[in-house]
Structure formats: structure tokens, C-alpha cells
């Protein structure tokens, strides 16, 4: 009788320890999963920031070629921006939120300038030049603002 009780108690004890270990393992696994998700998210943010930083660099170079009135170099640079924007907008779409639409506008502005510079000589009239300088500056400003927001969002979530 006493032996039977001892068996019951030890079985219950083993069961309880097993349950505790299982709970501990689940908690640990959940934490590890969250840590992995956060690390993945951080890498994603970093990649987005790096990609947009590169696009801003291209846009600044484009602005320099425009200021130097070098049409051929400006066309190559602005076409590169159009291609990069299309790719990165697709890749980081869920992270960009309302900036995705803004980038779409910037992309179509870049496309318009690429078409214009691709077909014509560098504009000679000062008013056409002023328009081109204004549009180019606007593109650099918009892209820099998006980059700033992407970085701020990444910092907030880290």
C-alpha cells in the first residue's frame, strides 16, 4: 500500500517536472523565434536604407550632370534611377507604406526627364534650364526625404 503511494507520488513528480521543462522549452523557443524575426526585420530595414541611400547618391550625381549641362551622362544616370526605383519599390513595398506612391511619382518624373533629355539637346533657353534644374532638385529632395523616413522607421523599430 505504502509502496503504491510512493509510486503515485514519484509519477506525479516526474510528470510535473516534465511539464515545467516543456513550458520552459516553449518559452525559450518563442523568445528565439521572436529574436530571429527581429533580426530578420533589422536586416530588411538595413537593406532598405542601403538601397535608398544608393538611389539618393545616383540622384545627386544626376543633379551634378544636369548642372554641368552634360546631357549624355545625365540620361544614363536618370535611367539608372528609374530602374533602381522600380526594383526597390517592389522589394520594400510593405515597408514603404505611403512613400510607395510618392516614389511612383518620382519614378514617373525621372522617366519624363529621361525621355526629354534622350530626345533633345540640352535645353538652351534659360527658362527651360530653370525648369530642368527645379525638377532635378525636387527629385533629390523627395528621395532624400524618403531615405530619412526609412532610416527613422528602422531606428524606431530596433
Amino acid at each position, binding site marked *: 500500500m505504502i509502496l503504491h503511494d510512493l509510486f503515485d507520488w514519484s509519477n506525479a513528480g516526474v510528470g510535473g517536472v516534465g511539464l515545467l521543462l516543456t513550458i520552459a522549452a516553449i518559452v525559450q523557443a518563442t523568445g528565439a523565434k521572436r529574436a530571429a524575426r527581429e533580426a530578420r526585420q533589422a536586416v530588411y530595414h538595413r537593406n532598405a536604407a542601403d538601397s535608398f541611400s544608393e538611389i539618393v547618391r545616383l540622384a545627386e*550625381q544626376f543633379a*551634378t550632370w544636369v*548642372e*554641368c*549641362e*552634360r*546631357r*549624355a*551622362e545625365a540620361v544614363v544616370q536618370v535611367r539608372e534611377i528609374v530602374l533602381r526605383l522600380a526594383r526597390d519599390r517592389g522589394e520594400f513595398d510593405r515597408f514603404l507604406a505611403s512613400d510607395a506612391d510618392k516614389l511612383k511619382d518620382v519614378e514617373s518624373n525621372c522617366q519624363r526627364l529621361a525621355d526629354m533629355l534622350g530626345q533633345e539637346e540640352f535645353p538652351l*533657353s*534659360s*527658362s527651360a*534650364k530653370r525648369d530642368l534644374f527645379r525638377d532635378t532638385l525636387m527629385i533629390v529632395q523627395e528621395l532624400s526625404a524618403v531615405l530619412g523616413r526609412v532610416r527613422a522607421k528602422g531606428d524606431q523599430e530596433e
Partner: protein
Amino acid sequence: MSEKLDQFARDLLEKTRANKLDWRIMANPMGREEFSVDLEKEYRFHIWLVVSGENRAITLQLWKDQRPVLESVANNWPGISNGEIVQERVKRFRAYSDLFDAVRESVYGGEETMGEVEQLLRRIG
């Protein structure tokens, strides 16, 4: 390259935009676009643009007593130093190009002139 002429270029731009200088076109057998303006005491500025494909060079020259005394050229090749574009040269070209545009506009008239001519031609039918 003359820093003094760079400073003069900025002053000339300001005065040209304010219509305070009477620039005139120069007949030029070399096919370049050239303008000049007379100041008092026999001083005169010349500015001209040479275009060759994508390359543009703008020369500003100061004359005294019928001969050139100072000359400065800005071209649109920005130059690279340590993999970076030399922004100083870009700024300099912009200053000269803006001056040249302002001079050309003051001689030929800007958008207003073009608009007026368009209207006149339309009226002729």
C-alpha cells in the same frame, strides 16, 4: 582661371539681370556666340561660348584700352578627385553659364520677346 574674374562674373550677373548693362552681340567669324559690354574708362568685358558636342567652354575676358588684360575659362567637365566630383568646378561653370544665359536673354529678349513674335506671326495669318 582668375578669382577676380569669378567675382566680376557674379557682379555682372547681378547687373545684367537688373538690366543695368548694355550688352551687344559681336560678329564672330569663328562661329562662337560672343557678346561684349562697355564700361567707363575704356574697360570692356567679352563673354563667349564654344560648344563642341557635349562639351561647353565659356570664356570671360576683361579688356582695357582695346586689349585683353584678364581671361578666365569655365568648362562643363566637372573633374574627379579621389573618386568624387569636384563641386567647386561645377559651381564655377554654373556661375559662368548663368551669366551667359542672362547676357543672351538681355540681348535677344527672353520669353516675352518670343511670345510677342508668336502673336505677331499669328496675326499675319
